[in-house]
C-alpha cells in the first residue's frame, strides 16, 4: 500500500494570494494513498524541507508530492531532501501551482480548483513512480571553446590554468576578435592592444591550449562529459607549421584591392594576408575569392618568394574529430547591418561611419595611422555628430528591441578622445538616455561633458543628408530647448546596435541549446545560473549570451571556465536515470525504436529465452544503453508492441495524469 505525503507551499503570497492553499491541502488529503497533507509558508526553506523530511520518516512515506513552483526551479531541492532521509529521490513529484496556476489566474475559486486538479494528477503519477538509480558515465578531460575573442581566450586560459587541455576554434585566421579592432578601452582609456595581445600570446604558448584558427565546428554528437566534435579546418592554402609569418608573400602579392575586413573595409589588403601585426597564430592566409593563382592558375608569386615553402595551393578543408567533456560557447557579436537605416545615409555617404569603423579610423594601426581623417577626402573633420541607439531599442522590423548596452560608454570615449586630440573639433552627441551603470562609468561620461565640453543633446537625429560641398546636414530634434536643429557636420558616427554572430544560430541547433528571439543564447537560469546553458555541459561566455562590455565579458568568461572546470575535475558524472528501457518479453525485434533513436542508444542482441515448455529459443531483442540514452521517449511511441517505456515518464504514469485531469 502506498503512503503518500502532500506538501502545499504558500511561496509567501506568490501562491497563497490566488490559491487557497489550505483548501488544496485538505482536498488532496482525501486522495487514495495520501496519509499526510500539509501546507507551509516556504516549503523550499530549510524548515520547510525539514517538514518534508520529518514526515517521510514519521509516516514512512513511499511517495511525496510538493505543490509549489515549477519543477525547473526546485525539483532538485526536494529530491535531495528526500534522498537525505532515505527516500529514493525519484519518488518525489512536483505539482506546478505557481508559474502555471497562481501567477496566471486571478479568480481564487477557479485557481484553487485548478491547483487541486494539478495536485491530484501529481498524486496519481507518484502512485506509479518507481525508485530509480542513476548510472555513471566518464568525463572526457578536455574542453572546447568556440570563438577566440577576449571571452574565448579568457575562458581557455582559466581552464588551462587548472591543468586541463582546451581547444579554441576560431573562424577567422587569428584570435583576438572585436577587442583586437578597438583602439582604447573605457573607462580607463588604456590601449586595447596593449592588454589583449599579451593574452593572445599567452594562449598560443600555453601547453594546454590548442588554437584551431580559420576553423569551424561542423558536427557535435554526444552529451555532457562525452561530446564528440568534428572541427573543420578550412583550407588557408598555407601550411600553418611551415609558415613563419615573415610577410614576404604579403609584400609581393600583386592582388592589392581586397577590402580589409580587419579595418572594416576602410582600406584594402592583399589576397594573401595576415590580418594585423600581432595576429595569433601569425600565419598567412590566402583568400581564394581574390587569389589569381587559385582563380585561374596565373601568378604563383607567393609560392616563389616563400623561403619556408609554406604555400600550398592544393590544400583542402580538413576535418578532425575530438572528444570533449565540456563545451564553452563564445561566439560574440557584430554590429547590425545598416541597410535599413538609409535616413542616416550610411550607404550614400562615406563620411557617415559606424562606431567600429571610427575605432579603426582612430587606431594607430588603422588605415590612417591614427590620424582622424574623413574617409571621403582625407581632411580633418571639424564638426562630428554622434547618433545613439541606431537600431537599438526598436519595436519595428528594422531594429533590435534591446539596449545594446555598450554604446553610451564607447561614444563618451570617442567624444573624449577626439576632443583631447583635436580641441578645435566640435562634438555633438544625440542621445535618448545616457545609460552608464558600472564602476566609474557615469564619472567617465560626466568628464566628457564637464572636462571635454562634448555637446550632449537630448533628442534624436531624423535625417542625415550629404550636400554638394561635402558637408553633411544633420537634422535633429533638441527636446529640451524644443527646437529642430540643423548641424552642418563633417562626419556622422552611428552607434549601430549589436547582434549575436550569424554562426550562433546554426551552432545552437548543433548543440541543442536554447536561444531567445534575438538569437542570444539562453542561460539555464537568468539569475542563478547565468553562465550555463540549459543543456548540461554547454557553457556560455561573453556577448553570445547578451550585450556586454569587456570587463563584464571577462568576468563571465572566467565564471564559465570555473563551471567547466567543476565538470572536468570529476572522473564521472551521474547520468539521468529517466531513460528508456525495453521489456524483453514483449519486444518483437522489429527495430522501429533503433531507427528513431537520435543517439544510437539502442542496439539489438540475440538472446536466449526459456520458453514455457522448458525449451530455449533465441530471440532478437532491443536493449538500451542507459549511459547514451538521453530520455526523449521517441522510441516509446515508435514501439508497436509496447515493450519500450521511459523511466519517470512511463505510459502508465502519463495516462494516470491524463485521467486525473479529465476526471
Amino acid at each position: 500500500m502506498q503512503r503518500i505525503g502532500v506538501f502545499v507551499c504558500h511561496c509567501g503570497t506568490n501562491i497563497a494570494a490566488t490559491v487557497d492553499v489550505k483548501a488544496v491541502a485538505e482536498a488532496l488529503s482525501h486522495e487514495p494513498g495520501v496519509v499526510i497533507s500539509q501546507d507551509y509558508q516556504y516549503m523550499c526553506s530549510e524548515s520547510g524541507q525539514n517538514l518534508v523530511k520529518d514526515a517521510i520518516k514519521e509516516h514512512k512515506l513511499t511517495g511525496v508530492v510538493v505543490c509549489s513552483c515549477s519543477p525547473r526551479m526546485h525539483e532538485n531541492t526536494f529530491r535531495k531532501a528526500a534522498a537525505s532521509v532515505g527516500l529514493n529521490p525519484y519518488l518525489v513529484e512536483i505539482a506546478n501551482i505557481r508559474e502555471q496556476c497562481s501567477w496566471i489566474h486571478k479568480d481564487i475559486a477557479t485557481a484553487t480548483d485548478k491547483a487541486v486538479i494539478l495536485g491530484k494528477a501529481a498524486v496519481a503519477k507518484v502512485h506509479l513512480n518507481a525508485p530509480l538509480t542513476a548510472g555513471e558515465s566518464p568525463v572526457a578531460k578536455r574542453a572546447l571553446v568556440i570563438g577566440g575573442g577576449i571571452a574565448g581566450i579568457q575562458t581557455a586560459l582559466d581552464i588551462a590554468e587548472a591543468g586541463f587541455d582546451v581547444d579554441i576554434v576560431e573562424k577567422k585566421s587569428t584570435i583576438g576578435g572585436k577587442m583586437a579592432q578597438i583602439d582604447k578601452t573605457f573607462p580607463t582609456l588604456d590601449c586595447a592592444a596593449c592588454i589583449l595581445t599579451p593574452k593572445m600570446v599567452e594562449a598560443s604558448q600555453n601547453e594546454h591550449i590548442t588554437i584551431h584558427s580559420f576553423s569551424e565546428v561542423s558536427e557535435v554528437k554526444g552529451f555532457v562529459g562525452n561530446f564528440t566534435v568534428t572541427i573543420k579546418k578550412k583550407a588557408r592554402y598555407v601550411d600553418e607549421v611551415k609558415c613563419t609569418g615573415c610577410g614576404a608573400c604579403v609584400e609581393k602579392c600583386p592582388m592589392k584591392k581586397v577590402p580589409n575586413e580587419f579595418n572594416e573595409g576602410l582600406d584594402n589588403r592583399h589576397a594573401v594576408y595576415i590580418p594585423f601585426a600581432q595576429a595569433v597564430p601569425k600565419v598567412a592566409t590566402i583568400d581564394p575569392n581574390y587569389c589569381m593563382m587559385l582563380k585561374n592558375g596565373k601568378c604563383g608569386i607567393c609560392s616563389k618568394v616563400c623561403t619556408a615553402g609554406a604555400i600550398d595551393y592544393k590544400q583542402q578543408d580538413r576535418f578532425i574529430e575530438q572528444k570533449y567533456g565540456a563545451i564553452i560557447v563564445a561566439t560574440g557579436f557584430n554590429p547590425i547591418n545598416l541597410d535599413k537605416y538609409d535616413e542616416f545615409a550610411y550607404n550614400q555617404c562615406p563620411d557617415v561611419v559606424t562606431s567600429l569603423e571610427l575605432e579603426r579610423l582612430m587606431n594607430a594601426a588603422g588605415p590612417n595611422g591614427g590620424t582622424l581623417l574623413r574617409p571621403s577626402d582625407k581632411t580633418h573633420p571639424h564638426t562630428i555628430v554622434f547618433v545613439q541607439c541606431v537600431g537599438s531599442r526598436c519595436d519595428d522590423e528594422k531594429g533590435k528591441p534591446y539596449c545594446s548596452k555598450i554604446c553610451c560608454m564607447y561614444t563618451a570615449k570617442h567624444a573624449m578622445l577626439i576632443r583631447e586630440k583635436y580641441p578645435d573639433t566640435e562634438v555633438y552627441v544625440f542621445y535618448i538616455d545616457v545609460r552608464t551603470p558600472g564602476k566609474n562609468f557615469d564619472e567617465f561620461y560626466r568628464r566628457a561633458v564637464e572636462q571635454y565640453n562634448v555637446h550632449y543633446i537630448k533628442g534624436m537625429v531624423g535625417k542625415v543628408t550629404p550636400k554638394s560641398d561635402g558637408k553633411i546636414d544633420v537634422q535633429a530634434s533638441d527636446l529640451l530647448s524644443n527646437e529642430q536643429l540643423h548641424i552642418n557636420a563633417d562626419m556622422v558616427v552611428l552607434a549601430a546596435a549589436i547582434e549575436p554572430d550569424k554562426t550562433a544560430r546554426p551552432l545552437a541547433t548543433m548543440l541543442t541549446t536554447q536561444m531567445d528571439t534575438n538569437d542570444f543564447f539562453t542561460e539555464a537560469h537568468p539569475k542563478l545560473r547565468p553562465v550555463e546553458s540549459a543543456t548540461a555541459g554547454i557553457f556560455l561566455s561573453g556577448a553570445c549570451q547578451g550585450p556586454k562590455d569587456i570587463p563584464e565579458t571577462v568576468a563571465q568568461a572566467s565564471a564559465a571556465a570555473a563551471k567547466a572546470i567543476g565538470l572536468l575535475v570529476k572522473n564521472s558524472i551521474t547520468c539521468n536515470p529517466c531513460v528508456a528501457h525495453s521489456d524483453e518479453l514483449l519486444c518483437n525485434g522489429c527495430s522501429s525504436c533503433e531507427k528513431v533513436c537520435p543517439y544510437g542508444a539502442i542496439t539489438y542482441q540475440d538472446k536466449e529465452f526459456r520458453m514455457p515448455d522448458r525449451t530455449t529459443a533465441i530471440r532478437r531483442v532491443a536493449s538500451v544503453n542507459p549511459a547514451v540514452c538521453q530520455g526523449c521517449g521517441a522510441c516509446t511511441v515508435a514501439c508497436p508492441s509496447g515493450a519500450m517505456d521511459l523511466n519517470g515518464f512511463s505510459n502508465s504514469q502519463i495516462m494516470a495524469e491524463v485521467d486525473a485531469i479529465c476526471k
Partner: protein
Amino acid sequence: MKTFTYYPGCTLRTKAKDLDAYARSCAEALGIALEEPADWQCCGGAYTTAKDEIATKLSAVRTLNAAKQAGNPLVTVCSACHNVIKQTNYDISRDEDMAQKVNNYLKLDEAYTGETTVYHYLEMLRDVVGFDNIKSKVTKPLKGKKIAAYYGCLLLRPAKILAMDNPENPTIMEDFIKAIGGTPVIYAQRNECCGGYITMEDKAQAVKRSSAVMNSAADMGADMVITACPLCLYNLKKNSGSQIPVYYFTELLAEALGLKEDTNE
C-alpha cells in the same frame, strides 16, 4: 498585350491632362491596354488613417472592386490616388472591422476584401514592362540630361503598405531615368514633402517646403525635375520660385519613346 484597369483620378481630367495623355499613349506603345472603369469617383486625395472614418474610404473601394470585377490589376499614375487606393486596399484586407463596415455600406454582390493588386504606373513599368524593355524602345534618349527624380511622400510612405521601394533610398525613378537615357541626380530632399495641400492653408509653408526641395535638387546640379503628382508639380513650379523646369515623368517617357508630338496632336 496585358490589360490593366486604369484609374486616372480627378486632376488628370482637368489640370493634369498631359500626365494622363502621355500615360495612355506610352502604355499603348509598350503593349499595355488601359481600361478605364465606366464611372469612377474621386479618391478623396488623402487617405484618412482614422479607424472611425468609413465614408471617406468608400470611393477607393468602389474603384478597387471595379478592377476586381474586370479581373484586372489596377494601375494609377497620380501619386495621391495611388497612395489612397493602396492604403485602403491594405487596410481592408487586414482590418476585419473596417471590411465589414465598408461592405455593409456598399452592399456589393460579393464582399470586397482586398483582392485587387494595385500598381503605380512606375511599378507597372518596372515589374510588368521592364526597364530594359523600355530602354530597347527608346528612340530619342535624353542624353546628357541631369534629371532629379522627386518622389515626395506619397509614393514611398508608409513603405510597409506601398511596398514600392526603399523609402529612404529609392531607386525606381532613377532606374526609369536611366532607361530613358538620362542621368539621375540624387539629392537629399527627393523623399521629403513638397508641402502638398498646405498651399491652401499656409502659402508660406508651401513656399518653404517646395523651395527646400528645389534648392536641394539645384545644389546637386539638376537640369530638370520629374514627378508623378500634379500637386507636387504645382508646388515645385508655382511656390518654389525656382527656374528649374518640372515635368511629369510620363512626358519624358513619351519624349524618349518618340511619342510626344503625336500625343499633343
